[in-house]
């Protein structure tokens, strides 16, 4: 597992039914591209988050494929319509097989 990986998510705690909200996510990750060499001339192995998904009550909201050129600590900001109260589940998939998740509840009102 890559070191010091911490996901952070910001979702409003409540919204009106049908409202479009802005979701922000950030995960600390080195995002080593696999293209660089160390001082001995050997390739530094690739270590990136390669996929990010967000689901709402089991239904997919966004599914992103990340490529090696994406910089350290990838940040995503996107909008989603809130049909009902429920839970957002955020998932990041690491090259090394680790999976990081975070959840946020949202109420209607």
């Amino acid at each position, binding site marked *: 597992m890559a070191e*010091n990986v911490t996901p*952070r998510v910001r979702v409003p705690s409540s919204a009106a039914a049908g409202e479009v909200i802005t979701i922000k996510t950030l995960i*600390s990750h080195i995002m080593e591209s696999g293209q660089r060499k160390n001082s001995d001339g050997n390739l530094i192995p690739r270590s990136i988050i390669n996929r990010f998904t967000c689901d709402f009550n089991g239904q997919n909201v966004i599914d992103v494929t990340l490529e090696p050129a994406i910089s350290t*600590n990838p940040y995503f900001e996107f909008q989603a319509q809130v049909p009902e109260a429920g839970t957002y589940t955020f998932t990041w998939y690491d090259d090394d097989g680790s999976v990081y998740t975070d959840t946020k509840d949202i109420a209607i009102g």
Partner: protein
Amino acid sequence: MTKTVLKGAITSIAILAGAGMALAEGGLVINGDLELTTEAPAADHLAGHLTTVYSGWVFRDSFTQAMEMDDFDNPGMLFVDAGEAMWNEPAGTSGKACADCHADASESMAGVRAVYPKWNEAAGEVRTLEMQINACRTENQGAEALKYGKGDIVSLEAYISMQSRGLPMNVAIDGPVADVWAQGKEMYYTRTGQLELSCASCHEENYGNLIRAETLSQGQTNGFPVYRIKDSVLTSASGRFVGCVRDTKAETYKIDSSEFVALELYVASRGNGLSVEGVSVRN
């Protein structure tokens, strides 16, 4: 020929004077509720040099400024989280964490960042916050000293700094620190390196002007530790000093040298009155 080119360069600098000053309307407000002082009357000891001091935030473009105005958008907060984890994690042979002695950082560390570097009576020396952290680690925790400049020590420094966010810088310059402060002042105004630049050449005489594509700031340290977008890590003042002296094409002092302690004290005192920004974002 050389002379003509030089003259042209100087003219364009004069035209650009003040061009980089982009005081955002409403100033620096964090998370919509914490207003920080980014412009203050200069301290008395700057009489004849500066009338107003500005945080480096003022000189950055609106995107960089906005990143600092929301803790979620400020990538430095990741390091604050890491620093908080260090605060609570036992280290060294003592098995003690920072929190075991200092308890709740929001109380015990409030105001600390604003007065550093400061005199340590027991040790008989001026200490930067980095030095104090390492002294605490080696003397009280039985842990090894951390390397200055970036990495763990700066994360911890960031967490400590955050407890003073919004408080005005208030570094003492008299009493036992007077000699060290004077040494720092002399360094500030001494030209070094192949480019023969002093700190003042850029940060006092030309702040707001462009140096190649960059807008020069006043070189204030109230925002440190700084998240530098180009490095994507936090940098402490000592780490920045090494980079700045290197940029004058000089042989730099060691990052943990007494020279940089003196300079850090002097430069910090130039920013007295500006808010501690906790963790700032710069280019």
